[in-house]
């Protein structure tokens, strides 16, 4: 059967990259007695699929991976079995069973929420808000193999709000249009004539979303719950 596992990645573990995180979970699963399914072949590997990789330096309260396990497993025990062997900063939040023909975590991701906390000097939030609302285009220069490319980040942003000491954004996180919060900030600050390098900030991913049949965003953890 296939299960979806929701976890957090916070604190100093934000410096662990995606490949290391995958290896971390493979080892963690091996430390438990959970009966994980393996691919066939000479070097079998666990059948797992991670949702949109988190950038190094970004924390998250809502990460996901899907995992094939034996049908005999008691799903209600998986969370605790894993939590006793987690490093500080990674916590399993929920485990749910996926229907037979569900899309895997990676393919179903459509959007992500981020909270950006300016913990030192605060930028002029009113100015940023006005800039966002009044510009139809916010350009970010992306370096690609074939040279520089201008991207209108506004097209990939679904929501934007000022909240307390920071900004909240909901951006495209699909594999085709994934917008990184850093790219969004660069475009917005440039348009507002602010130098992003002068500000220190933390980014916290809050959750990942997919679309339901009514084209509404639903948390990846709730779609089949």
């Amino acid at each position: 059967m296939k299960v979806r596992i929701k976890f957090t990645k916070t604190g100093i573990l934000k410096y662990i990259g995606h490949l290391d995180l995958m290896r971390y979970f493979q080892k963690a699963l091996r430390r438990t007695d959970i009966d994980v399914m393996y691919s066939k072949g000479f070097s079998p590997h666990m059948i797992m699929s991670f949702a949109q990789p988190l950038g190094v330096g970004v924390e998250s309260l809502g990460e996901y991976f899907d995992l094939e396990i034996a049908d005999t497993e008691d799903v209600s025990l998986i969370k605790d079995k894993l939590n006793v062997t987690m490093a500080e900063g990674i916590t399993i939040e929920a485990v749910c069973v996926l229907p037979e023909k569900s899309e895997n975590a990676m393919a179903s991701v459509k959007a992500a929420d981020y909270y950006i906390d300016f913990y030192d000097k605060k930028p002029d939030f009113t100015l940023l808000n006005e800039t966002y609302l009044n510009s139809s285009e916010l350009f970010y220069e992306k370096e690609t193999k074939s040279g520089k490319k201008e991207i209108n980040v506004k097209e990939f942003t679904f929501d934007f709000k000022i909240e307390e000491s920071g900004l909240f954004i909901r951006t495209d996180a699909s594999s085709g249009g994934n917008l990184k919060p850093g790219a969004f900030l660069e475009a917005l600050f440039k348009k507002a004539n602010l130098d992003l390098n002068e500000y220190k900030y933390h980014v916290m991913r809050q959750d990942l979303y997919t679309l339901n049949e009514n084209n509404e965003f639903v948390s990846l953890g709730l779609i089949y719950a």
Partner: protein
Amino acid sequence: MQKCPIPEEIMMKIDHPERYIGNEINSVVKDKDKVDIRFAMCFPDVYEIGMSHLGIQILYDMFNKFEDTWCERVYSPWVDLHKIMKEEHISLFTLESKDPVKEMDFLGITLQYEMCYTNILQILDLSDIPLLSKDRTWDDPIVIGGGPCTYNPEPIADFFDIFYIGEGETMYRMLLDLYKESRKNGDSRKEFLHKAAKLSGMYVPQFYEPVYNDDFTLKEFKPLESDVPVKITKELVTDMDKTYYPDKPVVPFMKVTQDRVVLEIMRGCIRGCRFCQAGQIYRPVRERSAEYLKEKAVKMLKNTGHEEISLSSLSSSDYSQIEELVNFLVEDCTKKKINIALPSLRIDQFSVDVMSKVQDIRKSSLTFAPEAGSQRMRNVINKGLTEEQILNGAALAFKGGWTKVKLYFMLGLPFETEKDIEGIALLANEIAKTFYDTVPKEERVNGKVQITVSTSFFVPKPFTPFQWARMDKREDFIDKAEHTKHYIASQLNQKVIKYNWHEADVSMMEGVLARGDRRLSRVILNAYNKGCIFDAWGEYYHHDVWMQCFEEENIDPFFYTTRERAEDELFPWDFIDCGVTKAHLLREWHNAQNEKVTDNCKARCSGCGALKFDCGICVNR
């Protein structure tokens, strides 16, 4: 939440910030107010190298089993962070508590290769600990060195307070107790070190003085206090089943070199290859029982979640219970989808059978280390491997489906002639021929065999029969490598033979440091001050800078390498007793000259001197 002494802006700018975060599974965090002793254990190289070292894992586990001690880890910050830490005055910290290394009671540094010597200074410097032992106070940790390079600690004697000679499992408890008592009594640092110098295996350089002849050979090496030992005998574990070995090794987040469970099946080697230091200083061979190892393997795999287990020893085929152990692992591990790595197994029917079960034959390659090309030369170096054995092994492997072979040789061995160099090419060619003779055309999977010949340059090491040998010059090395290349190119099967060789400059410096004396501390210090670190990493080794340092300190580096040594010369390391006597080594040096082979410990005891430890193969024959 966990601390990080390096600000976020810097962490995001450097390579692999995960090297500096600690917090790994099975790392040990204690309450610092509830321990008496804080020990920082350091491998002076980058995290992924240092974390792969078994010795530190063993000692880390041992120290942390002591209730009054908290052992933490520290590694060399990579060059990018090194520079920033110097500029921004960030003090080096331990990975567990993130507290400054300077606040620790001990800083233990393991010395695995000579080319890490400038990194010792890097660690001290970034920790704000005075580089020279004589300048330190109780505000600084006791800096203690261990590992194979302590068998000639003289080139780095000025930087260490104590060297622990031998295996760490035995004497640390006594040293820690002595330390606690000394601190309670309000002893001075010197008083403590003086007491430590009387403990078995401890060498405290400040209580000894080398006296030189006019030509800088050693005249005398004398204790400066009447109550410290004249000779320091190495420490060793006598029963390998009744000692420390971790059940829960630390599991790095980052992919490190040794990303697997490592099972040390025995210590020492029964073979006395005459160039090999490990074969002498770890004598006698001591095995762990298969029962003990099976239990450890199961526990360690369970506690780490690693997907691979590797056997570790100098020569695994000589382990008396190898078949039983390997069969157990194959059975147990394949069930759990765990790979088995079997390095240093001799190629015979058993190993070929096992490897075909646990390895992907198409991808893996077979390794032979004949070390010398001709039989005459293999007799000189006492490598008990005949051409027939190599070719039979290769034939077995080819029949089993392997097509890739790696061959390791040394150039510049004592008494080497042109014929021996040509022998390398001839042997490689014979192996290719064996492939074509054993595997019929229609069964050749990739069509052909791939043979890789690698040569390294011979570096004479202390406590080996070749400690008297002169080392080749850089030019000789390059010349010999060119000849090897030429001979390979003139073989019939040259198309399937690839040839690699190592840097000659680094080998030369390794040769200087390996048999160096205390005068070299000045040169190393000067090299560090001129920016040398990570000398073991080819691209960071600056030969010209090192040469300039020798010139400035008025020391001739060739004194240590190309000079002929008299048989009765007093060596800087002679005050250490590793068990094997100098008389035995000299006998072996003569046997080398006479191309005479000496039996291994299992076949016949050659009376090397290690019998006095009363353990291992010397008593269980």
